[in-house]
């Protein structure tokens, strides 16, 4: 009940205020992953997921997709940088009005494992208005009390970023439960493995690229040919933690390729419904359920708060404009 009786408690509204304090207020945009572009396509299931979950999405067949590629951070006009966290939100439109929504990023683990740590890290990374850079001491103090973040950062750095959105692997990060037709529950994580070949990001920073270079490359890529990913389900075992997004499961865990995501249309946020969709990771079809990971309910709550705030605001044009998509 926190926030109603105790204003100091970490309620969704205070979380949202934290984003606005660090990144500034941009009317009509998401509080995080503000810069983005919309895509459409389909997911073709090969039927192999049905042994894990009775969710309709895993029955052999095709369902339409609405998606959104984004960069982490609250500034919708930020210049693209190779090391920025890339996001992919997906909405699987299932028959009879059911939906599966997921919001993924291109790091194999998450940097924090509680909502409070996310909030504290957000504030610790806030640029100092005098220097324009985060206060080293604040971040050092945060890391000193969060060894799991130090550990997760090592894992993230051991997976160098690819050169673009189109050849990035995206991870669901949190664990979920799948329930099969017989009622058996299995802990899972999921990821999207690109069919576009990996090429490392150029992080030397010699030639200053265009401020939308990541998005422009994505748009050019989709216009050239549809982009595809394999949806991989990782099957957890009894002792694998389901409540800690900073800890990866062992590599030896079974991976099941359950189908192919194809993205063949790209549109600006101006003309596509993705801007007005909340990619709430807890919009799940029957056959999937949240794990005990505390980040999940918090993500749902804060995404909802962000959605409600921007819904009523005047919509400013996105950095990736319709003409940018057409050129």
């Amino acid at each position, binding site marked *: *009940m926190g926030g109603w009786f105790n204003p100091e408690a970490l309620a969704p509204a205070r979380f949202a205020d934290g984003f606005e304090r660090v990144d500034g207020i941009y009317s009509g945009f998401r509080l995080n992953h503000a810069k983005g572009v919309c895509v459409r396509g389909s997911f073709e299931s090969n039927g192999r997921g049905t042994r894990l979950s009775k969710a*309709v999405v895993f029955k052999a067949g095709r369902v339409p997709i609405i998606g959104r590629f984004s960069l982490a951070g609250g500034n919708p006009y930020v210049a693209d940088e190779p090391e920025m966290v890339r996001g992919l939100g997906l909405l699987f439109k299932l028959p*009879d009005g*059911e939906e599966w929504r997921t919001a993924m990023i291109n790091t194999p683990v998450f940097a924090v494992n509680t909502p409070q740590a996310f909030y504290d890290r957000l504030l610790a990374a806030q640029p100092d208005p005098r220097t324009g850079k985060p206060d080293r001491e604040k971040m050092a103090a945060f890391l000193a009390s969060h060894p799991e973040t130090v550990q997760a950062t090592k894992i993230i750095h051991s997976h160098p970023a690819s050169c673009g959105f189109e050849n990035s692997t995206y991870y669901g990060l949190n664990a979920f439960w799948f329930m099969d037709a017989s009622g058996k529950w299995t802990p899972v994580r999921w990821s999207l493995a690109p069919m576009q070949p990996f090429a490392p990001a150029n992080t030397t920073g010699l030639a200053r690229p265009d401020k939308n270079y990541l998005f422009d490359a994505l748009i050019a890529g989709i216009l050239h040919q549809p982009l595809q990913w394999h949806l991989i389900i990782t099957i957890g075992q009894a002792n694998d933690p389901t409540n800690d997004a900073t800890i990866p499961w062992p590599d030896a865990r079974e991976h099941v390729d359950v189908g192919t995501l194809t993205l063949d249309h790209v549109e600006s946020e101006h003309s596509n419904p993705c801007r007005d969709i909340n990619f709430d990771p807890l919009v799940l079809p029957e056959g999937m359920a949240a794990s005990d990971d505390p980040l999940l309910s918090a993500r749902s*709550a804060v995404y909802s708060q962000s959605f409600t705030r921007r819904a*009523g605001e005047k919509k400013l044009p996105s950095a990736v404009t319709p003409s940018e998509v057409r050129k």
Partner: protein
Amino acid sequence: MSVSVATEQRQFTALMRLFHWLTAALVLTILGIGVAMVASLADYHRLVSIHRPLGILILIVVVIRFVNRHYSTLPPFPATMSPRERSVASASELFLYALLVVQPLVGWGMLSAASYPITLYGSIHLFPILPHNVMLYAVLRWAHTVLAYLLFLTFLAHFGAVLFHTWVVRDGTFSRMAPWRVRAH
């Protein structure tokens, strides 16, 4: 049942009283859940998952209740109530009914305008009643909060009026709706 001849009826019918207390329990529960969920991170998802079907259940109960009321004989107002008080009481009852129907509809409409799937339980979900339009969502989301406060204030007024009549005027107003059966003196 032979005592409850229409002319001597002092209580609402057993079915009406059942509906009344059922509504009271459901509405106070959902108001509590509503307050808790907007302030909660850890329990948000669990509370929203209860809030949605509970709101629809209230809508169904209130509609059935209103129809039942239409076909039932109401006990007369206590003799202590002036005509003015009676019309205020009737109007406030009608207002409560209206709020109890409008509030779930606003919730349903708001989820429709936000293009959320309106999940009740498992794969059971409702169809959208409004088109996907986030400005409309914003207005309805605001209205949902305002109506919730209005509902709570109306409940307090209703509760306060009954307490006043029962304990100060001592005209047996509460016994008209008491969950148990009260015999005529």
